[in-house]
């Protein structure tokens, strides 16, 4: 078991190393290595899942550091949470590898791309299997790195290079908080290993609950960065500059869910009833993120941007559920969401590929007839995202709404509005992009994609439907708390949202040529993402200006003016002064010399 777990972690690293060091030139071999390593890890994950035993393995990395502190370990922990997450990561990962074979067929840097994918698989399985926070943090940074590399895959495009930089820097802010949080937690509990945290939680030593709350919020900052919660959400939409399969794998299904996964890890390890303020903050941040993102999504034209904002919104859902101390609901939604969001992204990838890299939905249209299978799978994914009854999304969203209803009415209302908006913007996407008439040459020439792309789509669409049912979920989902379905307020709210959102979308966008809502002032605010980017730009600019002004002052006046300039001016002044004496006139020199002799004699002889 342990060997298999280490193998799952090691294989992608081996693949990445081999490709990077050995086979960069050989594109075909590189793709083969990366894809087969993804397939083997998937099989191994299934083996671990089939085994079904909770176990853990570790070796000491940094020895014991004193009475209070335990040392740091490098260890793997296999339990229900990591097993399920492993299936999500390797499953989506393998399908994305498969999809990329076609999608990246003509890319000249294919080897680099697959090397990045392998590196990401390594980092992500590392996060999933990590048995302590320090190790998780290491892999946390590694996924940041691989995400950076993959967003910037087409680094020749300035926008892609900027987006990768933005993603990395924004993540750094969150990661800094994460690190401080880990250190605070270490200071409070004396350990960073999850199993020992559980022990500590069972019999907590006297501690200041406020500190623990603050530590939790700092750790949450890491999740805010990685899972793109407000106010650090700005990087995720820009990250869509990367290749679409990357968006499906990293920025929809797995990496962005790492924050939720980490929170779930923490919440299942430590009993947090006593410090209610921190989880409540988390829940509210999640709710607000989901609402804002849903509003922004309603006015986007880029098919990937719409999906990116919907990802933001769904992540907000998950975070809210975790914050409501119902980690099961959050992680269950993570699980279902991973399948159907990967499906949607890969579907959009297929569309983009077919339309010769056209991403604007208003230039598509009528793709239903051109690409029937893609349309079918995309529709299934959309329905799952909307929470249509009998799809996976319906069950998981239901659980979140239920959790919200029990804990906080305002959050429940907010969640219901988000559900409505989700239906609305996804309906808009489907109506505009797939129905109606062809609105551009690119969409006119679109053809159904090949089998290698359709296999992942079909697989994922099947999973998007069945993964919500208890018989699948209890086996596969990382955390699953079976709740008997009942026709409560949550069901009615979700059904109302479906009807209202769908109805509005149908009204506005049936046969629409342009966006009928784009004239509205409020729509402009949504379209411009509440001007958050501009606000940040202003803040950063202001900060930079301040620092620059201070530095300029120091440089110009103190260093340049006083120290360097002062020295040079002093030297110049003395030079000029003594230069005066250098008349170049020999008589002058001789006179001065004579005067000197006279003075010398006077001093030596006549001064008593």
């Amino acid at each position, binding site marked *: 078991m342990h060997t298999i777990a280490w193998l799952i972690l090691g294989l992608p690293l081996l693949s990445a190393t081999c490709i990077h060091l050995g086979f960069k030139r050989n594109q075909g071999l590189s793709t083969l290595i990366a894809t087969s390593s993804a397939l083997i890890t998937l099989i191994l994950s299934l083996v671990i899942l089939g085994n079904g035993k909770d176990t853990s393995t570790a070796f000491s990395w940094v020895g014991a550091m004193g009475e209070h502190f335990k040392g740091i370990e490098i260890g793997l922990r296999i339990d229900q949470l990591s097993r399920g997450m492993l299936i999500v990561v390797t499953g989506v990962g393998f399908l994305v590898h498969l999809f990329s074979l076609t999608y990246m067929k003509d890319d000249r840097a294919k080897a680099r791309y697959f090397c990045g994918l392998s590196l990401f698989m390594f980092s992500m399985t590392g996060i999933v299997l990590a048995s302590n926070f320090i190790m998780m943090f290491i892999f946390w940074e590694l996924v940041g790195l691989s995400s950076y590399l993959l967003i910037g895959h087409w680094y020749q495009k300035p926008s892609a290079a900027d987006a990768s930089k933005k993603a990395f820097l924004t993540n750094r802010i969150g990661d800094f908080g994460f690190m401080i949080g880990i250190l605070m937690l270490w200071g409070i509990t004396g350990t960073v290993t999850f199993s020992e945290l559980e022990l500590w939680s069972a019999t907590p030593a006297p501690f200041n609950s406020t500190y623990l709350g603050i530590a939790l919020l700092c750790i949450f900052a890491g999740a805010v960065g990685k899972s793109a919660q407000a106010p650090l959400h700005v990087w995720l939409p820009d990250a869509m500059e990367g290749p679409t399969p990357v968006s499906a794998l990293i920025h929809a299904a797995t990496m962005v869910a790492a924050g939720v996964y980490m929170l779930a890890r923490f919440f299942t390890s430590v009993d947090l009833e006593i410090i209610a303020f921190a989880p409540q903050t988390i829940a509210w941040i999640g709710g607000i993120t989901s609402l804002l993102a849903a509003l922004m999504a309603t006015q986007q034209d880029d098919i990937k941007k719409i999906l990116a904002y919907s990802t933001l919104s769904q992540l907000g859902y998950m975070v809210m559920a975790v914050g409501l101390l119902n980690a099961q609901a959050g992680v269950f939604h993570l699980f279902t969401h991973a399948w159907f969001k990967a499906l949607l992204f890969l579907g959009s990838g297929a569309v983009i590929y077919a339309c010769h890299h056209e991403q604007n939905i208003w230039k598509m249209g009528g793709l239903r007839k051109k690409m029937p299978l893609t349309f079918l799978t995309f529709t299934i994914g959309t329905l799952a995202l909307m929470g249509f009854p009998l799809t996976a999304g319906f069950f998981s969203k239901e659980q979140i709404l239920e959790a919200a209803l029990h804990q906080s009415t305002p959050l429940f209302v907010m969640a219901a509005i988000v559900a409505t908006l989700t239906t609305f913007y996804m309906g808009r996407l489907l109506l505009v992009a797939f129905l109606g008439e062809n609105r551009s040459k690119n969409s006119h020439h679109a053809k159904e994609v090949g089998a290698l792309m359709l296999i992942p789509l079909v697989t994922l669409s099947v999973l998007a439907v069945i993964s919500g049912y208890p018989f699948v979920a209890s086996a596969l989902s990382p955390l699953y708390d079976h709740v008997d379905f009942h026709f409560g307020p949550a069901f009615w709210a979700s059904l109302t949202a479906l009807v209202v959102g769908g109805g509005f979308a149908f009204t506005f966008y049936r046969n629409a040529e342009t966006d009928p809502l784009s004239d509205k002032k409020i729509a402009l605010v949504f379209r411009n993402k509440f001007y958050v980017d501009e606000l940040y730009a202003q803040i950063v600019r202001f900060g930079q200006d301040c620092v620059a002004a201070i530095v300029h002052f120091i440089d110009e006046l103190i260093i340049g003016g006083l120290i360097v300039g002062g020295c040079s001016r002093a030297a110049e002044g003395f*030079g*000029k002064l*003594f*230069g*005066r*004496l*250098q*008349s*170049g*006139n*020999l*008589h002058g020199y*001789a*006179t001065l010399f*004579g005067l000197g002799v006279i003075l010398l004699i006077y001093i030596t002889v006549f001064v008593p």
Partner: protein
Amino acid sequence: MASLNDYLLVSGLLFAIGLAGVIIRSNIIVIFMCLELMLAAASLTLVAFSRFNVSSNGLPDYDGQVFVFFIITVAAAEVAVGLAIIVALYRARQTINVEDLTSMRG
């Protein structure tokens, strides 16, 4: 017979005359001659001291005269080099008038 003070006075006056020449004259060769004059004045002082400082065996103290011998030797070398420099200077500038040689003005 003259006393030591007389010799010292003559030597001092000779030195003063040389100094005046160095300051006043603008022909670099004449200045050079005046420098020689000043050296010679110093030699006179040394010889006078040598003669008046009688050593234990009743003879003059010859250390001073040895010193003069060295001064003359150095002066000869100095004149050779100095005149070579003057010739080179004249070739480069076509003048040996110190009032025209002001390239060291700061």
